[in-house]
């Protein structure tokens, strides 16, 4: 029996997972078919469950699912409250609340039709699927390792983001500790007054900590730069800023149909080229090495490829059989389910088997409550 080659558990380059998730999210934008969207959701959740590591940052996927559910429910509730759509199949009728003349376009409550509700649900489901795909990327790829892979010129921005991500749980801990201490003072929760008693110690604490962190990072050599002449500095600056401006103009030209042709794609490419050269030039100045950098290998290509194949498959479906992707609501019809989009989406499930399993040696369980820390129970 053929056995797959032994794979060592390792963590993939975070970019691979992000490309996979972006492919799924792009696929989700192309359709409102609830079956296809739910399938994308299920595929994303499956891959997360199969390939997620045990580190604490990987356990937040559930929150994204909850967020998605909230999005769908709020869309449907919004549709119920602000009627406006008509449908043949009325589920129930809420009392119509008449509005004054100037708001005559808005209709509050009134008869609630299935088509209208479903329209809201489909819309919300699409957004929820995109959110869950991004949550899957967050759960599969350590966001901080992704920030380590940014080009040299953006390294300092990346570090700032990494530090901010590390500081957030400390802030939460700080707030909890201070709230506990407020109880010791017998303070009643008086709204704004209570807020002051919490916010000020937390902010002061945060300020002290950030100063300590800055001193520590400075002492360890963060921010060393090689020598560079003022002329080079100016050139790099002009390239980067000009390139980014060109990108903005090019994007605008591309999206606006009435803009002249040269403002579109040519400007976008020129801007990208200028910005990229500016970044590489300025990146050369940063003296830094990377400890055990993530490499983009075959497994990463496969994972990214699966996600992009899903997006490509749905684009293809749009050319071949678009009715499949947009089930009609008026008149009401069962959502269709065709092989082509289904296979495209199931391609996104392949990383659950083909990607290497995550490494198991991250110990998450703490040694017990520390006396000098708040353990949040």
């Amino acid at each position, binding site marked *: 029996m053929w056995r797959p080659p032994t794979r060592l558990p390792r963590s993939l380059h975070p970019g691979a997972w992000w490309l996979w998730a972006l492919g799924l999210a792009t696929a989700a934008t192309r359709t*409102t078919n609830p079956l296809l969207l*739910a399938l994308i959701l299920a595929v994303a959740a499956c891959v997360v*469950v199969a390939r997620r590591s045990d580190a604490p940052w990987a356990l937040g996927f559930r929150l994204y699912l909850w967020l998605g559910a909230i999005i769908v429910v709020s869309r449907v509730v919004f549709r119920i409250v602000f009627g406006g759509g008509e449908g043949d*199949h009325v589920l129930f009728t809420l009392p119509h609340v008449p509005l004054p003349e100037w708001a005559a376009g808005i209709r509050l409550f009134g008869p609630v039709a299935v088509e209208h509700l479903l329209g809201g649900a489909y819309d919300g*489901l699409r957004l929820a699927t995109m959110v869950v795909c991004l949550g899957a990327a967050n759960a599969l790829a350590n966001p901080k390792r992704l920030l380590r892979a940014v080009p040299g010129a953006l390294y300092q921005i990346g570090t700032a983001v990494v530090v901010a991500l590390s500081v957030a749980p400390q802030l939460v801990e700080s707030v909890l500790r201070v709230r506990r201490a407020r109880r010791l003072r017998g303070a009643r929760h008086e709204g704004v007054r209570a807020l002051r008693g919490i916010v000020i110690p937390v902010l002061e604490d945060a300020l002290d900590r950030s100063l300590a962190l800055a001193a520590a990072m400075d002492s360890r050599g963060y921010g060393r730069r090689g020598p560079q002449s003022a002329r080079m500095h100016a050139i790099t600056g002009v390239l980067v800023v000009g390139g980014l401006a060109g990108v903005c103009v090019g994007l605008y030209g591309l999206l606006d149909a009435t803009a002249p042709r040269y403002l579109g794609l040519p400007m976008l490419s020129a801007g990208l080229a200028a910005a990229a050269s500016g970044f590489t030039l300025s990146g050369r100045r940063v003296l830094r090495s990377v400890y055990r950098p993530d490499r983009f290998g075959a497994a990463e290509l496969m994972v990214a490829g699966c996600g992009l194949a899903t997006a490509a498959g749905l684009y293809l479906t749009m050319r071949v059989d*678009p*009715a499949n992707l947009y089930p009609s609501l*008026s008149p009401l*019809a*069962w959502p269709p389910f065709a092989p082509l989009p289904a296979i495209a989406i199931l391609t996104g499930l392949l990383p659950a088997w083909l990607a290497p399993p995550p490494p198991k040696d991250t110990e998450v369980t703490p040694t017990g409550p520390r006396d000098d820390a708040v353990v949040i129970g």
Partner: protein
Amino acid sequence: MRRGRGRWGRAATAVLVSVGAMLAPTAPAAAGMVSAPRLTGKAGYCPDANGVTVVIDFQELGGATIVRCAVGDQATGLAALKNAGISITGTSRWGEAFICRIEGKPTAATEPCIDTPPTTAYWSYWHAPNGGTWTYSQVGVMNRKPPLGSFEGWSFSLNKTASTAPPPRIAPVRPAAPKPSAAPSTVRSKPPKPLSKPTPPPATAGSPAVTQPAGSPTANPTAATDTASALPGSADATTWTGDVGRAAGTTDDRGLPVATLVGVGVLGAVTAGGLLTARRRRALD
């Protein structure tokens, strides 16, 4: 561990319930969807003032212009459209408050009908009193009650601005019954004289079929289709384009949505696989 199993059981139930809730509201509608849409209304112009005549001009989309009559008092322009027996598709976002597709055109390839179509390709809404001129409607299809005897027009505007949208190419004039009428907005065709030979109406798709009894003076310069005059049956055949854009093949003979069920099955399989993997991982850790 017991707690873990309970948790996965709950998760599985939640998933299945949500999928079911998504599709359940369509169940009561299933009954209504199995049968073909009823062909209400009458083909051709309304014979008298008791009804609203609906004119659909596809313009560049291709297809013979449709003229049908919604008999009786119509509450809104939308009701007139529906009661004339014309199949329409609204948008996902606004329901039928904005008409996106009429008789299946434009197809889902060009317009998915999720949100309001762009001003470069949409169905423009016109109305006219009998014998008047087409006026671009300032209100939506659900906010207007067409008076009895008036005309409702739909014309596809492609790559035009709001001010240059093309009105339907058929005059909003109800042909008179076969007795002379002294109305100022004169109907152009007069009853055929006995010695004229009736000319069979050329059934050309893409151009309005012009039937003119030979010999009758055609004073009206606008080419108009007199589809209601002498040949009701064939008029039906030439201008009624049928159910082109309806969601095809979602039901089979027994009334079950096979494809949807297959889809739900695949979804359930993937979810079950995921829950199993999760439980196995939990057990290993």
